[in-house]
């Protein structure tokens, strides 16, 4: 396993302590995500208009990895198109499961999300980071992304 400080990077600890966009969104579509393994729960709110994410927020109780992942996700998705959100999620998933080589990250648009790159060394924790993303997809009406990412 790589060094702990690589997992719990400053940016992750910061978003865990002061999650951004941590609130309810009125008149937004929402979905609830639940990881039955650890009891983490997250609710993601998305306001979408003409294929663009106008606003996105979340609430929930989770570990530092899931809270920071949700927080950074909301920052990255605001103003993006649904198609861009899909692409970003795919790249994020590939990165945390070790399928995205470091060389492939250039121009991937992952940026701050690269803080989670060391998760591939912690397979038991990957679902903590992807739960908010699956929930976001569910909120966008894609039931495939649904509920839990067991």
């Amino acid at each position, binding site marked *: 396993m790589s060094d702990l400080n690589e997992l719990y990077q400053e940016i992750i600890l910061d978003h865990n302590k002061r999650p951004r966009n941590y609130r309810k969104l009125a008149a937004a579509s929402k979905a609830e995500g639940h990881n039955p393994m*650890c*009891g*983490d729960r997250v609710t993601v709110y998305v306001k979408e208009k003409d294929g663009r994410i106008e606003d996105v927020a979340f609430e929930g109780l989770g570990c*530092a990895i899931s809270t920071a992942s949700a927080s950074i996700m909301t920052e990255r998705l605001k103003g993006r198109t649904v198609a861009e959100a899909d692409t970003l999620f795919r790249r994020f998933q590939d990165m945390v499961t070790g399928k995205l080589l470091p060389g492939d990250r250039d121009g991937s648009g992952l940026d701050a999300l690269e803080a989670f790159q060391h998760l591939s060394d912690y397979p038991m924790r990957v679902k*903590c980071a992807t739960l908010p993303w699956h929930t976001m997809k569910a909120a966008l009406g894609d039931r495939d992304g649904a509920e839990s990412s067991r």
Partner: protein
Amino acid sequence: MMATALRIENPAGTSHHPGFLADTVAEDFPILHQRVHGRPLVYLDNAATTQKPRAVVEAMSRFYATDYANVHRGVYTLGARATGRFEGARARVQRFIHAPSPEEIIFVRGTTEGINLVASTFGEQHVQAGDDVLVTEMEHHSNIVPWQVLCQRKGARLRVVPIDDRGELDLEALAGLLGPRTRILAVAHVSNALGTLNPINEIVAMAHARGVPVLVDGAQAAPHLPLDVAALDADFYVFSSHKMYGPDGIGVLYGKRKLLEAMPPYQTGGDMIRSVSFERTTYDDLPHKFEAGTPAIAAAVGLHAAIDYLEAIGMAAIAREEEALLAHAVARLEAIPGVRLVGKAAHRAGAVSFVLEGVHPHDIATILDSRGVAIRAGHHCAQPVMDRFGVPATARVSVGMYNTRRDIDTLVEAVYETKEVMG
């Protein structure tokens, strides 16, 4: 190996210095002697499963190498030997828990299957619409869901005995809930999530005074305490081999003979019948009536070896050592600023659950793992307990006979480091 265990046998119960047991038995568990992330492994997830002493692994390996065949079938020598070993294991379990007869020992896959067996046979027979089934707020999901499903099917009520803020059962509430429509009480001997040791003799007596039979989930008691199902007068007592240093894939359902005899089979098929024609089938006697198909034969041999190992040390000695170790863990954890224990029962066995202010249990477990310390973080398959204490999850430390005070001290040091890492 066994010689090690025998050397420390202590039948007189004379006191020896704390940690003596753990230091002596640790060499019998090869898996414990390794480094994880560069640190010596400290295994503190024994409520999930225990590690296996060499004696268990070798007994199974020897059995496969010399005596293995299917049981209750072949007239040939190997078949007879395998059957002898399998039935020998049953008799060993009987003596271990002081059951009146070996026919009352049913081999199942584990505690979960044992409870499901009782719910779908005894429960099916005795629970009708309008009846009550009693469970407690501290049960593992495996002692809730089979009863819940039964109640839904029957139109019966699942009623719940509450626990107090210390994580102890509310016995007054239990007395009030035991009514004329109560068909069974299903209760843990020891809570897997809180470590609470229930006053099980008193609970069984209370239920019996109202004519209510009791199923005791002994999964978290069998590795830690001397058991006597006859003295306890439990109607059913269920436990798993893998939590008591034996192999996984086998567990035990003890039931009183007159109850087992009156129950219909659970699964049907080979090895449980007397005669079959396309018109009708008659079932075999106990215990085979409940053991359809080829059982976990080598696992039974391994469980036999695990019980030999445990009894060579003595369950009373194990209980005494572990009680002292848990007291040490409770005292040291409580002294950490920001730590709150979840479950503070006066009597405890096996486990201590805690939360750390501002740090999710999952993060604690990951950071502890980086220090070589294996603990469990989560809801421990006891979500109602988590709800009761208003936490999504806890960190749980659970000890086995090989754990030392040093292990607890390493854990505590790692919790302090967790606080540092998480700022």
